[in-house]
Structure formats: structure tokens, C-alpha cells
């Protein structure tokens, strides 16, 4: 009775959300088409210099993903293309694609760049925000994927006037094809994901910004290019008009956001506060004497680690934050150049005039008109702000069945949230097609490994400039030339970006051509880049353990940036040591593990249930362990979502679905008693009041949630008129008639958040209080409501609620953390005293309800963290594998997280993360087997004295005594459990243990070479 579905997914867009979704799907058994309108993928993230809050180099963390997509057998990139129409329905869509001619044969182009070099036509370079010129034949950026040139037909002299033809004459590969034509074709896919991203607000023509024809007023995305090593000034920060180094830079926040007058964008763009802080910090790092001022309305640092970053920006970097929206910017007169800004000084309350060398407009996010038109045509509903309309309980489904959404098109958001949604959308898109999993995918064939044992080592050394990350400090050619002098080194080279796809392909080719059998890459960190280079070795038929990475960036150019000579010498030393080590390396083999196809979800709240449902929808069996007597967690107390949906209804539906799902077992009143095992085969003992049971599962998802803290101030607990947000929700949920009789309600925000003892922002309370105020206004429009806040953080489209609340007469009063409101009470009334932030005079409010927006605190479950060997941060939230690109994964294989235990977040974001965690888990489960690492300890039984130190010291229980036979009593290592940490090796007093890949001889050789 089921109709056959197509096991392929089409993804519209080529940014980071699209990339993540594509990888999730392609690695879970689906064929993926990526439709990208430009010649290459990468999107806005590829244009960024660094990413907040960790200030990781954007391209450095993104490049491995770009390369993986570019190489993936089951991802087909359709560039220079857009969608014209979508026919059919979920499971079997027919998608009409229009693809512009590239005029370059992608199968022939070797990306040598000879064409662009000889091209006489210069045009604005969009990748660099038109700050510089590119040629009419071009690749958007050096690490672009696919790294294939394209002719910009509008500007090509040959194509427009029939003259020139230089590129064809100079192309050594014969790749130029002026006869190429635009194409229309139809793709058949089962699901579609819209991850079309955003465009930045264009301030052109807006007089107050004086942006037109004024090079010293730039948009934030332009400034990002100015900061970037690959940008127009190679990362050297200058004032464009005269190339003088700036002394003062100003950022103006909310340009094209939270504004319904000079533009029509009522939403908050969510990311601008953080990127402005990031840019200011980077600018200060470029030049510590620089004065940076950020002019803002509300500082919205509501994400994980953001508030710390904001505090550091002020306290450590001395960045000035001026809470004012400036009226205008204009070029000052007189000899001295500079942009004039008039503003009201917050402290003095007086008008001030100040000059800045550069003014950065923190431009907001908008949905491009063509995306709105396509949505309209294909039946996808949008919000009034033009973003994709979604339901809080189904946050990545569009209004057309079978079409999903993720990234900024779903609503303004940052990279981690986009990546989370990408996982979520991939999960949903795949779940609809499980019947056709692996029907359209191609199998990866790894070349047969070339035996190297007994051969003389032939070492290849590749030294990376990493743009200017390394090259600006370390003399890379000198390191390269030095490497050539080392024993066994047969080949050396340096690359601008060793991780770009063309360099990777080049390395593979060179390994074969030069018969290299040991490889060194001196570049960045193996934490992110080891797998990439190892794959390159495998592609060349070389065992991936015949490889060493030397981190001359983190350990060299970054930490010793003021010592170029010494860090160059250090790089040489490190390379010499690595060569000494790698020549002794032997090929290692990996054990194959089968993955148990069951999953455990710890926590039965919204996140846990969503994760379980998601895994079940992919066909996997799930056990939910919930410590309470019922499912639902905090949602049992909550009233409505920010979009106004009833949480009670949503929860009831979810609980029913979970209970009726035959693939989901629910264990209530259950604690985790013990965990053994590892990815693919965990054995977890679940304990209830009357029984214990051990279940086997291949993966685990931690969704243990968090709780509302109990306030210790503002008379909470001493006067029953003082309640928390959750308590008010309960009363509204129960339809408490007493609420109607309230005359005056006061909300106090940041109760227990953003203070030294608990420095993070709890993210959801501003929206929650504003929504609650609106509910109270609905109950009684005459109720006087005051919200006392520090910064209103109704990010994204939640800003509309803030606007609605003001419109309905809710009064917002900002207080200073050093001058908090004072609450007293009498029998008749509560009294809240606060200073008005504008009039600077005291206000005494007589109230009959005081709602405290209390902090969200994690459970800090150390035992659970120990069981699964997962880390927690200082605040007690679990720490993800990578803040930006792996926000739902742990560094520990097979364990994932979602919901409040990761960081406070609303229901829609929790569900998205649950689905993303499920998507990551599915990626693993669908492979059925995984390989463990080859770098593991082994025991030489002949030397073992059966002392047992290794058995007791190993955190993973890998060593054990042989029970029977000739060697009974001696220690052996279970290769599957061993993580290669080396603790046992170091502790073995008889020298029986050694670590593959870190043999004593190798270490000694390194030390000798040091």
C-alpha cells in the first residue's frame, strides 16, 4: 500500500546549513543534490574572518566540510542554478532546475588560474563585497568548492562582444567552452530542504548612514572582508579612503533591524551584537591602541559563551559600549578626516560629538526577494518578516509537506543554530524516505593500500601558510626549504591553504607521482584537520597512520606572533621532530565494530521525546529513561510558546505519540545506575524503585534538561505575591481567576542570571516575560504592567512580541545591576522601587504581583558525565564537540546532547536540537559498523608481570587479565575499548605495554631530534 519514495533529497542553497544537512543525509544513505546559485558553495560563512564567541578562523573550521562535500560520492553539486518550480508531493517531487552556463568544462578545468591571469576584464568582486575587482573568469575564493573557474557571461568580452578569447587561448586543459548554454532539467527527489540563507540589509540611499560614496562607512560584512587575511587588504586594517591606520572605530547596531521606519524589518537579526563584539575584539588584536565603541540599544548576547565574551570585551579588551542609537553619521569637515557622530551620552545625559576613522554598520538579515517569490510559487508560507513560517513543535517543516527549512531562512540565527537546524531538517527529510535508504547512493571504493613495510621511508613535507594565519609570522618557504635537508625527505612544498580541495587533490597526486610513503603536514591543529589529510593519504593508497601533523599555527604563529624569527626556528624544530617520528611509523590496522541498532535517550522532557520520536521515525528502537513519574519535564508547567501555541496541547500530543510508538520504550522513575561499553555497544543499567535492568544500545542522547532556579531575593518565598515565571505559567495554564483581578504586575528580569555567581544569560526569560505580560493584558487590558530589565533580549522574530507589548502599554524600565530594584511589602501591596533609566529619577510602584524571571540552571549531573565520559563547563552545561559545527555532538563517540542540558533554549530550538542529535546518531547507526582507531595500546605478554596497574588505571576498562590458558593472569588490551590515551603504557613497570603510533622508539627519535 505504500507508494515507492525516492531516496534522494534536494537542498536549495550552499551555505553552512546546506552543507551540514547534505553531509548528514549523504552519510545516512540518501543521495543529495545541492542547488547553489553562485559558482561555488560556502555561503556567508566563507566570507567571515572569524566566528564568535571562540574567534575560530571561519575558513579553517569550514574548509574540511567544504572538501568533504566536494569529494562526497553521494552529493551532487548543481552550481549556478536555481529552482523554477516544484511539482509532485512528499516522497516524489519533480523539481525544475534552471542552470546557467558556466562556459568552463568542469571535468577539464584544473583550476590553474591561467585564464584569470590573462583575462583583461575587471569586475566587482562580490565575494569581497565589491571592495576589490576580480576577473570576468573567476573562482569566488581560493578554497572554493567546486574549485572550477566560471565565466561571468554578463562581463565577458568574448561573450558580449565576440572579441578577446584570451582564456581559451591560455587554458592548458582546453576547458573553455564559449558555446556552453543555459540548461533546464528536472530532478526527482523524495524530500526538499530550503536552506537559502539571508542577505544583509543594504543601507544604500539612507541619508543618516552616509554610506553611499563614503568608503569609511562600511557594512559589517564589508568589514569582515577588511579584517580577513584573504580580504582586499590581506587583513591589514586601514581606513579605505586614504589607507591610514585607524585610531577609532565605531559600530552602529540595529542597522536594518528592529526598525519599522527607515526600513520594514521589525525583527532582531540575532547575530549582530555578537559579531560586532567579535569584530571589535579582532580589531583590537590587530592594533591594541585602537579605540572601539559599539553603539547599541540592547546588548543581545544570549547564546552559549556569549555573555562571557561580552564581559571580556569590556573588561579585558577595553571596548566601549555606548547604549544609544545614534541619529546620523556624516563626514567631518576640516583637515582631519573622520566620521562625525552626535549622540546623547548615557552617563552625562548631554549631547556629545565624536569622530571616528571608520564606522561599521551592523547590518541585519533579510530574506532575498527571489526566495520570497519562490516560496510563494511553491506554496511555502512566510511570516510577516519574510522568514519561513514554522510550528514550534515542528520547527523545520514548512507549510508544504515534504519540504523542510533550516538556517537563516527559518528565522535570523547564528551558525550553531543553523547547524542544529540543518541536522534537524536532514533528520526529517530522511525520515520521510527510510523505505528508500541506500537505494540511490553509490558505494565508496577506497583504493587498495600499497604495502610499505620494509621499504625505505620517502617523506613528503607540506608546509601551510594558512592564508596569513601562519605565513604572516613564520617564514614558510624557509621551513619548507629546511625540511628538504632532513633525512628521508624526498619532496617538499608550501601551500596557501593546505586544506583546500585542489591542494588535497594535488597532495594525492604528488604522493603517487613521487612514491611518497610518509607524509607530514605542517599547518594547524590535528583536532580538526587530521581526518581530512588522512583521507587524502587513503585516496593515494597510503595507510593513514603514516602521517604526522605539525601544529605550527596554534603552537607557532598564534602564540609567538611577535617573534617571527624564533617561531620560524620553532617550526623547523617541530618539523624535524615529526620527520624523525614518521620515518619510524608503521601502517596500523583498525578494528571493525558492529553498532547496536538501539538507542538510549536520557530524559523524557520535550527534547528527550523529540529525540526518541526522531530516531523511531528513522526506524530505530529507542529507550527513554525519565527520572520523574511522567513525561514532559518543564513543559508540564509551561503555558504557551512565543508563537502562541498551547504547550499543553503540544505536549499531550507528543506524549501520546511517544506512548503509542512501538519502537519507543518509556522507563519512568528511572535513574541511570551504571554505564559500561563504548560507541556501538553501551550497556547501561537502568534502576527504578523496584528493579534494575541492563540494556544494550549503540548510541546515547543526553537530554536531562535544566530547572528554574529558586530566587533568594526580592522577597521570594517570604511573600506569596512574589512568584517565578514558571509559577505564573502554571497559574495561567490552570486559568486562575485571580489573575483577572490584578491591578498592577511587575516583572524583574535577570534574577540570578548575568551576575558574577552565574554569569550566563538564560536566553528565554525576556521572551517569556514579554509573552506573559501580553497574556495578562489579554486577561485584563487595564492591568498596569512593568518589566524591569537590563537588556531586552527578544532575539529574532520574538522582537515582534516586545513591540506588541509596548504597543499595548507595558512599560519597560531598565535597571543597572549595581542598582537593583528594591522590593518591600505591606499587607495591601508590594512596593517595587527602581530608578527610571531615562529620567534618572526614582519610581515607586505599588503592585499586587511580582514575577521574577529566574535563571535556568542545569542539574550538574557529575555522575552521568562520568558514565559517558562527557565534559561539563563551569556553569554546569554539557560541552559540545565543537561550538560552531558540532553543537549537538559530544567529543565522545556515540553520545549526543540536546535541550536545556546544553544551554537554555525555548521549545522550538530544543526540538530542533533533539532532531539534530538524532540525525547525528542516525549517521552513526546507519553505517552499521565503525572502525576504531589504530592508535591503541598492545600488550607484549612475555614481559607482563601481572601486576595489575594497567587494569586499575585505565579509565575505559580496556586492559583485563586473561582468564584461561597458558597466559592466564597476564594483561591484554581490548582494542575496541582502548582510546589510545597511553595511561597504561606509562604506568607499566615491566615495559610490556606499548602504544601503536607512539612507539618508544618514535618518541625517543623525536626527543633526539629535538
Amino acid at each position, binding site marked *: 500500500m505504500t507508494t515507492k519514495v525516492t531516496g534522494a533529497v534536494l537542498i536549495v542553497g550552499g551555505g553552512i546549513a546546506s552543507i551540514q544537512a547534505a553531509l548528514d543525509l549523504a552519510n545516512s544513505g540518501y543521495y543529495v543534490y545541492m542547488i547553489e546559485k553562485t559558482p561555488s558553495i560556502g555561503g556567508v560563512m566563507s566570507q567571515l574572518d572569524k566566528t564568535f564567541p571562540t574567534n575560530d578562523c571561519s575558513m579553517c573550521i569550514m574548509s574540511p566540510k567544504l572538501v568533504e562535500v566536494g569529494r562526497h560520492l553521494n552529493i551532487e553539486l548543481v552550481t549556478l542554478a536555481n529552482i523554477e518550480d516544484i511539482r509532485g508531493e512528499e516522497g516524489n517531487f519533480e523539481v525544475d532546475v534552471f542552470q546557467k552556463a558556466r562556459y568552463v568544462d568542469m571535468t577539464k578545468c584544473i583550476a590553474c588560474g591561467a585564464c584569470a591571469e590573462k583575462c583583461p576584464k575587471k569586475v566587482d568582486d562580490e565575494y569581497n563585497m565589491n571592495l576589490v575587482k576580480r576577473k570576468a573568469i573567476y573562482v569566488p575564493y581560493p578554497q572554493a568548492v567546486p574549485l572550477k573557474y566560471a565565466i561571468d557571461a554578463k562581463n565577458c568580452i568574448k561573450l558580449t562582444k565576440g572579441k578577446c578569447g584570451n582564456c581559451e587561448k591560455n587554458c592548458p586543459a582546453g576547458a573553455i567552452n564559449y558555446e556552453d548554454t543555459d540548461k533546464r532539467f528536472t530532478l526527482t527527489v523524495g524530500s526538499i530542504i530550503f536552506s537559502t540563507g539571508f542577505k544583509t540589509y543594504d543601507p544604500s540611499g539612507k541619508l543618516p548612514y552616509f554610506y553611499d560614496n563614503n568608503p569609511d562607512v562600511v557594512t559589517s560584512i564589508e568589514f569582515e572582508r577588511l579584517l580577513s587575511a584573504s580580504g582586499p587588504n590581506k587583513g591589514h586594517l586601514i581606513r579605505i579612503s586614504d589607507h591610514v591606520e585607524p585610531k577609532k572605530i565605531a559600530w552602529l547596531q540595529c542597522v536594518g533591524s*528592529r526598525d519599522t521606519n527607515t526600513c520594514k524589518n521589525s525583527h532582531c537579526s540575532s547575530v549582530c551584537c555578537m559579531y560586532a563584539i567579535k569584530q571589535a575584539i579582532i580589531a583590537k588584536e590587530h592594533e591594541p591602541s585602537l579605540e572601539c565603541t559599539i553603539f547599541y540599544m540592547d546588548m543581545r548576547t544570549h547564546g552559549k559563551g556569549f555573555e562571557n565574551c561580552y564581559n571580556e570585551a569590556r573588561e579585558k579588551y577595553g571596548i566601549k559600549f555606548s547604549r544609544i*542609537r545614534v*541619529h546620523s553619521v556624516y*563626514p567631518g569637515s576640516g583637515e582631519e578626516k573622520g566620521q562625525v557622530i552626535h549622540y546623547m551620552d548615557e552617563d552625562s545625559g548631554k549631547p556629545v560629538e565624536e569622530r571616528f576613522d571608520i564606522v561599521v554598520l551592523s547590518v541585519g538579515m533579510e530574506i532575498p526577494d527571489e526566495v520570497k517569490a519562490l516560496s510563494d510559487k511553491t506554496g511555502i508560507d512566510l511570516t510577516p518578516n519574510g522568514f519561513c513560517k514554522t510550528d514550534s513543535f515542528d520547527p523545520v517543516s514548512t507549510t508544504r509537506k515534504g519540504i523542510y527549512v533550516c538556517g537563516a531562512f527559518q528565522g535570523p540565527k547564528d551558525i550553531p543554530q543553523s547547524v542544529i537546524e540543518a541536522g534537524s531538517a536532514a533528520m526529517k527529510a530522511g525520515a520521510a524516505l527510510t523505505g528508500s535508504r541506500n537505494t540511490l547512493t553509490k558505494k565508496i571504493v577506497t583504493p587498495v593500500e600499497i604495502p610499505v613495510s620494509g621499504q625505505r621511508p620517502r617523506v613528503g613535507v607540506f608546509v601551510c601558510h594558512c592564508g596569513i594565519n601562519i605565513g604572516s609570522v613564520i617564514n614558510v618557504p624557509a621551513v619548507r626549504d629546511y625540511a628538504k635537508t632532513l633525512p628521508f625527505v624526498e619532496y617538499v612544498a608550501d601551500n596557501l591553504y593546505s586544506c583546500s580541495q585542489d591542494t588535497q587533490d594535488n597532495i594525492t597526486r604528488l604522493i603517487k607521482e613521487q612514491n611518497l610513503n610518509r607524509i607530514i603536514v605542517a599547518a594547524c591543529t590535528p583536532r580538526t584537520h587530521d581526518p581530512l589529510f588522512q583521507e587524502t593519504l587513503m585516496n593515494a593508497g597510503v595507510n593513514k597512520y603514516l602521517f604526522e601533523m605539525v601544529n605550527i599555527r596554534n603552537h607557532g604563529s598564534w602564540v609567538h606572533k611577535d617573534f617571527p624569527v624564533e617561531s620560524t626556528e620553532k617550526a623547523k624544530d617541530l618539523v624535524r621532530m615529526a620527520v624523525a617520528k614518521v620515518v619510524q611509523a608503521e601502517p596500523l590496522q583498525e578494528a571493525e565494530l558492529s553498532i547496536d541498532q538501539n538507542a538510549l535517550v536520557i530524559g523524557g522532557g520535550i527534547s528527550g521525546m523529540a529525540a526518541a520520536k526522531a530516531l523511531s521515525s528513522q526506524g530505530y528502537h529507542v529507550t527513554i529513561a525519565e527520572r520523574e513519574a511522567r513525561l514532559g519535564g518543564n513543559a508540564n508547567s509551561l503555558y504557551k510558546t512565543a508563537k502562541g501555541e498551547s504547550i499543553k496541547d503540544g505536549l499531550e500530543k507528543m506524549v501520546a505519540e511517544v506512548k503509542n510508538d512501538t519502537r519507543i520504550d518509556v522507563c519512568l522513575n528511572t535513574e541511570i545506575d551504571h554505564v559500561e561499553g563504548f560507541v556501538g555497544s553501551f550497556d547501561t543499567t537502568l534502576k527504578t524503585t523496584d528493579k534494575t535492568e541492563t540494556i544494550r544500545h549503540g548510541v546515547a542522547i543526553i537530554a536531562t534538561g535544566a530547572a528554574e532556579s529558586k530566587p533568594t531575593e526580592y522577597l521570594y518565598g517570604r511573600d506569596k505575591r512574589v512568584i517565578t515565571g514558571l509559577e505564573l505559567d502554571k497559574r495561567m495554564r490552570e486559568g486562575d481567576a485571580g489573575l483577572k483581578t490584578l491591578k*498592577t504586575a511587575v516583572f524583574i528580569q535577570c534574577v540570578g542570571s548575568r551576575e558574577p555567581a552565574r554569569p550566563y544569560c538564560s536566553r528565554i526569560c525576556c521572551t517569556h516575560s514579554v509573552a506573559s505580560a501580553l497574556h495578562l493584558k489579554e486577561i485584563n487590558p487595564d492591568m498596569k504592567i512593568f518589566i524591569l530589565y537590563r537588556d531586552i533580549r527578544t532575539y529574532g522574530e520574538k522582537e515582534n512580541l516586545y513591540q506588541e507589548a509596548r504597543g499595548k502599554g507595558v512599560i519597560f524600565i531598565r535597571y543597572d545591576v549595581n542598582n537593583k530594584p528594591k522590593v518591600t511589602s505591606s499587607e495591601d501591596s508590594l512596593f517595587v522601587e527602581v530608578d527610571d533609566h531615562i529620567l534618572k529619577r526614582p519610581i515607586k510602584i*505599588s503592585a499586587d504581583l511580582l514575577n521574577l524571571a529566574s535563571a535556568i540552571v542545569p542539574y550538574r549531573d557529575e555522575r552521568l558525565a562520568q558514565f559517558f565520559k562527557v565534559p561539563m563547563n563551569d556553569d554546569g552545561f554539557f560541552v559540545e564537540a565543537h561550538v560552531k559545527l558540532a553543537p549537538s555532538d559530544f567529543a565522545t563517540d556515540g553520545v549526543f546532547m540536546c535541550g536545556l542540558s546544553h544551554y537554555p533554549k525555548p521549545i522550538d530550538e530544543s526540538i530542533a536540537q533533539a532532531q539534530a542529535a538524532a540525525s547525528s546518531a542516525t549517521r552513526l547507526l546507519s553505517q552499521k559498523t565503525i572502525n576504531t582507531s589504530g592508535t591503541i595500546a598492545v600488550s607484549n605478554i612475555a614481559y607482563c608481570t601481572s601486576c595489575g596497574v594497567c587494569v586499575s588505571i585505565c579509565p575505559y576498562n580496556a586492559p583485563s587479565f586473561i582468564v584461561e590458558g597458558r597466559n592466564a593472569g597476564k594483561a591484554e588490551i581490548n582494542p575496541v575499548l582502548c582510546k589510545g590515551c597511553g595511561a597504561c603504557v606509562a604506568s607499566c613497570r615491566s615495559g610490556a605495554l606499548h602504544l601503536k603510533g607512539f612507539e618508544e622508539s618514535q618518541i625517543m627519535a623525536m626527543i633526539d631530534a629535538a
Partner: protein
Amino acid sequence: MMTDALTIDKDWKRGFRETILSKLPEGANLNYCLTCGACASGCPASGLHDMDPRKYIRMIALGLDDELYKHPWVWLCSMCKRCTYVCPMNIDISALVYEGRNLWPREERPRGILGSCDMALRNSSGSAMGTPEDEFQFVVEDVLEEVHETQPEWKDLKAPVNKQGAHFFLSQNSREPVTEPEEMVPLWKILHIVGADWTYSTRGWGGENYCMFLAHDDSWKAVTTNTLQSAMDLGCKVYLNTECGHSTFSVWMGQKRFGIKTNLEIAPMVKYYAQWMREGKLNVNPDWNKELKVKFTVQDPCNQIRKSFSDALAEDLRFVVKACVGEDNFVDMVPNRSNNYCCGGGGGYLQCGYNDERIQYGTIKKDQIIATKADYCITPCHNCHDQIHKLSDHFEAGYHTIHLWTLIALSLGILAENERAYLGDDLMEVNLPASTIEEE
């Protein structure tokens, strides 16, 4: 500053806020204030009497009605709407100030404004200076006669009054007929050259409206209705406003605000100058300034640009001025166009009696003009003209202030000696009409 605690209890009343919310469309968006401070940051009246637009809004929102009652700041705000121009919530602060003026008993409002309004109401001429219909007609005819006598090449010049069926109805600010009648002549000449079919009227000729500044709706409406009705009765097609910002705005906005039915096009003078130039009817020549290189800047009148006809008119203004003085001799103030600073002549400032505050308010404008290094500031608005002229005198800034008609006539070589009252010595004898030179 008052530091008394504001008590919010059962008896908390916010009468002024209620008035605004019920009376103004969308409550002028008052409730939506983000307290962001963009308004206060760009307002020349910020800091005067320890007030600024944001504080003013906040006082309304918090119900400080007693302190708002008869607050002098409402007269120090020129209602230029530079605040609203950037307000992210589009709060009409000038409307709040207008209502704030209404918190003053009518008879206690500044005498200069009140007197001028009442004068206009008493006269069917609509003249704020009280010049009655017949006296205006006499002056016009008298001046015309003198032109015919002293400038023979202009013997055909006309200044029609009450001409039935004329295309343009031209309003006339009272200042010229009363104190400097020869200043009317350059405009007549321009209209003559382009062949415009125009007329003055005796009824409602007064091109000013102090009742709008007084914030008295009935009075504003009466003055505007009178002049529009006069134009309609004459069967005119275009209500052409003389170079006067507030008067243009009062008619343009008054017609909308009070729903006065009319098919008249209500147009500012500058738009037609530009149109006639583009049509080749007004062939100004900047050659007189080729060697002299006298520098000019313009003031964008808030009432005509930001508040009504926007940047398109600002472009027209520049087009006209550049054509007259040469592209290279024009220097723009920054900021400009719709984002221009008010000079401090608007909103009835010149008549409200707060002269020290007005000068302080105008400091920004004075500095802006000085920064251009221009010798002349062109003001196609009477109140701008008066204030900017006064600022130059007060600060001894050294620039001259002229109407646009003076410049156009100069560039056409038709500006007679006695029509050069506002020109400096440098231009007193430049490009004089041929006849004048012959006489000498």
C-alpha cells in the same frame, strides 16, 4: 532636576498620554518608544531646559502631567521632525509637541505667535502682519508701476491680482509687501519670463500661518481654508507657494489634516523653478561666477523637504542652484537633504520670545554653514532666511543669506540694483541688467 519619587499606585493617572492615544492616529506611535535615544542624539533642542525628545516622550509615558503642563520646551522644539526621520518606531514627536503646546492656555501661549495668528484670523487677507486686502493690492500695483517707470525693459511686467481663471495662484509672505516690497519683483520677473499665467488674490494672499505654530487646529484650519478657497474661487489649478517652508507645509498638511476638499495641486515654488529650467523656459547662466567663484550653499527647509516633498525636491533645489552658480561653486552642507538640521527658524521660534535658546539651537546650523566655507546660504524659506541671517549677524559668521529668486534673477541678468538688499558687496554690481548699465 527633580528627584522626587514618582509614585505609581491606584491613583496613577496619565491624562496627557490618554489624550494623545485617543486623539492622534495610532497614538503617534507613542507607546512603541524603545528609549533608544536616536531622537535625542539628532535634535538641536536636546539639552535646552534640560529636556530632549526622549525625555519628553518618557514624561508623557510615565504620566508626569503636572510637569508637562506649560513646559517651555514645546516652544524650543521647532517640530522639524528630524527625530522622526530616524526613529525606528516612527514616533511622531512633533505631533506630541504640538499637543504639548495645547497644554498651554491659548491666551498664555507666546505672544508673538498668538498675536500673528489672531491678526491673520481677523483679516480676510490672511496676513499675519495685518495687511488688509486693499492695502496689499495697492502695494503690488504701486511697486509694479515703479518697475515700469524705472526699468523700461520691464514695461510689460505684470502682477495680476484676482485674475479669474489663472493657472497659478501665488501666495505672498507678508514680509515683502510690508517691509521690503522690491523683494517681490524678482519673482514677478521670473514668472514673466517663463510665461506663467498667474495671479495673486486679495483674499487669503498671506503666505504664512502662525496658527499652526500656535497649535490651534481651528485657527490653522480657518487660515488654510480661506486661502485655498480663494484659489478655488479664482478657478486656479495650482496653489503655488512662495518661497516659504512653513506656509507651504501648513497648506499642504492642513488640506490633508482637515480634509479640505480641493482639486488644487499644492506645490512649492522650487519644484516649478526646476521644471521651467528643464523645459528651457528659464535659461539661467552661471558664467557671471566663472571668474568670481563665489561659493554657495543651500538650506533644505525642513517643512518643504523632510516633512513634505522629500528628497526629490532637495534634488530640484540643487539642480536650480548649480545651474545658477556653476557646479563647482556649490558646496553642500553635511548632513543635508531630508537629514538636514533645522536652522532654528521653524515652529514659530522667531516669534516665541525664546531668543537665547533659538541662537543656541542654531549653533549647529551656523557651524554647518561655516564648514562649507560658502559666501552665501540660499534659503528658499522665509523663516530659514530670517534665522540664518540672524545667526550670521549674531556670530559674525560673515556669510550672506538670500532667497532663491534673488539668485535666479541674478543669473538671468535681470536683478536690478534695488533688488539686491541681501547681496553682499561682492555681488552688488555683478550681472546688472543692461539698462541699468546704460543709464550709468
